[in-house]
């Protein structure tokens, strides 16, 4: 199947004094599913528009399969874009919408009809060909936008928060659908979202952006288990971030002292270099914070929340200088009920405590 690699070199975009995208480099491999993740205003949509050719960079280069397309207009780039609001042409039937890119490429009528039907087949909506976009549901419009994009087999498909307007159930279903189509076609996909769960489930790699720059680039596992900065730890999943000081470093492991405690404990590094005496943050995920075991900390229970499969405990630690903690465990029926104000001892395995530079990562 057709698919191309994408290379971005020192790409930069400013609007007046505002830096929408600081000089950024990024490689996307052939057939890869890469997600641009980040809060709004982080530069992810700017980067996507630059790749699509809908905005012009101030500096830097964009290469598709080693071919410089930095100054090519959108219509010459052979990329496909699925827009956030789908951007289906309201005055054309579904069939005409899907055939539009083929007509622009002067594909013969018979061929266009055949390929349009095949694309509708791929998104499992062959019966809506003669309808108009406003006659379809949001989920159906989303599929048609996808079909219009895959029908001309672009080298790269860009998706700008394509599932943002759908409700949760439909979103889950469409995630699977997009993954299936990605597997079947093997196209390179660059996907923009602000939903971290969506990024985790769908991507080969995630590019987490913040304030116009890349904060961390890696597999979902990398970002989740070895965040390079407090921002990453905070943005991806829930986390407890405890201030600590480094006592000593040996290989991957660190000796640390939590807040104003005296006793030392152990943590693992996130891949950065640490020096003794350095103030750091230690990240422990709620599901790794065990109640009644280990005993590195103790605190009083302030709240209990059962959100379906997980039970969350909110705990005020007795050690000064630590924030409120969250511990989570699978909800079990028949276990002894908690009492608010109850004293709990908390602990974790050293391998689940990850050391992160305080402030910005490297």
């Amino acid at each position, binding site marked *: 199947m057709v698919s191309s690699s994408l290379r971005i070199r020192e790409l930069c975009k400013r609007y007046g004094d505002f830096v929408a995208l600081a000089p950024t480099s990024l490689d996307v491999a052939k057939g890869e599913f890469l997600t641009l993740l980040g809060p709004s205003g982080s530069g992810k949509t700017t980067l996507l528009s630059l790749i*699509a*050719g*809908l*905005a*012009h960079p101030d500096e830097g280069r964009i290469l598709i399969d080693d071919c410089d397309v930095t*100054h090519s*207009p*959108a*219509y010459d*780039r*052979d*990329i*496909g*874009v699925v*827009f956030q*609001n789908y*951007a289906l*042409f*309201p*005055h054309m039937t579904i069939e005409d919408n899907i055939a*539009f*890119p083929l*007509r*622009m*490429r002067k594909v013969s009528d018979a061929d266009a009809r055949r390929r349009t039907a095949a694309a509708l087949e791929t998104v499992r909506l062959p019966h809506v060909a003669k309808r*108009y976009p*406003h006659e379809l549901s949001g989920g159906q419009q989303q599929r048609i936008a996808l079909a*219009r994009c895959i029908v*001309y087999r672009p080298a790269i498909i860009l998706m700008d928060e394509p599932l943002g307007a759908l409700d949760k159930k439909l979103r889950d279903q469409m995630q699977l659908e997009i993954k299936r189509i990605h597997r079947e076609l093997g196209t390179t996909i660059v996907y923009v979202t602000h939903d971290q769960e969506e990024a985790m489930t769908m991507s080969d790699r995630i590019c987490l952006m913040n304030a116009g720059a890349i904060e961390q680039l890696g597999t979902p596992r990398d970002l989740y288990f070895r965040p390079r900065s407090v921002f990453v730890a905070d943005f991806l999943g829930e986390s407890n971030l405890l201030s600590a000081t480094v006592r000593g470093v040996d290989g991957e492991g660190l000796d640390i002292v939590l807040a104003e405690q005296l006793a030392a404990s152990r943590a693992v590094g996130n891949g950065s270099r640490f020096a003794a005496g350095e103030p750091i943050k230690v990240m422990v995920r709620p599901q790794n914070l065990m109640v009644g075991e280990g005993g590195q900390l103790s605190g009083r229970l302030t709240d209990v929340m059962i959100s379906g499969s997980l039970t969350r405990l909110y705990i005020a630690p007795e050690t000064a200088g630590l924030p409120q903690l969250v511990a989570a465990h699978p909800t079990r029926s028949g276990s002894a009920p908690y009492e608010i104000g109850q004293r709990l001892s908390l602990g974790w395995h050293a391998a689940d405590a990850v050391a992160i530079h305080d402030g910005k990562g490297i």
Partner: protein
Amino acid sequence: MRAISRRLAWTRAAMGAPLVLLLVLFLVYPVGQLLLLSIYGDNGFTLAQYRQLFASSVYLDVLLITLKISLVTTLVCVVTGYPIAYLISVVGKERKATLLFWVLLSFWTSFLVRAFAWIVLLGRNGVINKTLISLGIISSPANLLYNFGSVLVGMVNALLPLAVLTMLSVMENIDRTLPRAAATLGARPGMAFWKIYFPLSLPGVAAAGIMVFVTAIGFFIVPALLGGRRETMITQLIIDQVQQTMNWGFAGAISVLLLVVVLIVFAAYDRLLGLSSMTGASAPRNAKPSRLSGPVARAGDALLTLLGAISDRIILLLPSRRRDRNPDQAGLGLQAFVWTMLLVISAPTILMIPLSFGTGGLNWPPQGFTLHWYETVLNSPVWTQAMLRSLLVGIGTGLLAMLIGTPAAFLLVRSEIRGKAAWLAFILSPIVVPRMIIAVGLFYVFAQMGLVGSALGLVLGHTVVAVPYVVMTMMAVLRNYDTRLDHAAQSLGARPFATLRFVTFPILAAGMMSSFLFAFATSFDELTIALFATGGLNATLPKQFWDEVTLQVSPTIAAVSTCLFVFMGLLIFVAERLRRRAAAR
């Protein structure tokens, strides 16, 4: 339960009745009377008036000229207005405000002032002749006035702002990502415009076309001031019949002819495109396939494809700089064209300002400096009384239209009433029926009631033509109003009246203020009804202006024009500030 539903019915009736009563008494009845007069003579039913109408070719010729002038005006307005509306819809916020200000200023400047400005501009010693002579292009002044060309220029100047604003309302609702999506799908700029943007903007083009055409058919100011005998339009004939011969029956017959033509135009429009596309109710988002079917649609599609391909060829021929510029920036050619057009429609009125301070009459270039013409105006009781009267009638019209229109708008937006579309059509009918027919009908009825020459008559007449705008504005405002706020107030213990007083009205205040200003401006600039209803004595400002300008072209009028121009500019500025403050909330 029944008591409550009965009370509800009464409340509704009380909200809608004043408007219906007003329209029945001062629109349906007068127009009906006039139409009846055309078929009832002293001896009962007669078709004599119509026999006279079709006996010679005179009246049909005038009708043909009217149609010709209107059609050419419409074409020019739509074709030149399209790029203006397009540019306004795509530029950034600040540039948009600037462009829009000039369109609005022109829109609100009195037709009279603009037509008068062209008389001065195109006159033997006007700016154009003097400039051409000083450049050595011509040796003696050319006759630029009182021909088809001068009428066309005046008509286009009068109606171009209307065309731009109508098209703009549709273009602003076109999703900007659609042309961008087309680009990513491989469409070059020309193709993206003609295959995507243009078809989506067509409802706006059609609406602008019919609005301009129908307004043009009922026009008399421009042809009367800028045209010669061969540019006489049909409404001028009606004026002649009423003012010179008092021949009501024949005036009625001509009115019927005019009304029939307008109705045929609307019917044809409805057959082709559907009337609903006129109110802008169907946003392009839900654009229905047009009623043109099969081969016509296919031919249209092929034509658009061809246009797209040709434009792209032309773009390729242009210097390559264009290809890598920011795709969001409008071309220089387009900007130059739009600013030229805006200059052409604003310049005449602005050139009036230096002339009004000159000692050399209305000849170009202005000479010296004097306030003499302003003193003349202010010392003349005729002018000052006319100004005062216009202000009073304007304020009265604004208040009455608000008082009657606002409850009706509430009713139309908030309640489920049967036949809503029909009611709406009825309320908007004063816009559709040519103003001249309403004016003559009102004159006839007012004469019976003894209202001719009274301020009350003028207020009533002006309210009839202003109230549709108030209802439309208030309906738009109310549609954007979040009714949950009312529910919240009620849940917090506010009774209906308290809810209105403390929540609903304060939030709607800006919208109400702007519709008041709209009604005020409509009345302040109204000439057609004032032409007859003032009874030749108690003139309003436009009527006084008209009487003067048809007698002689004097610098005094330039002074009055300048005052009106500045006054309207201030009014727009205030209205715009109010609108922005409302939008900022």
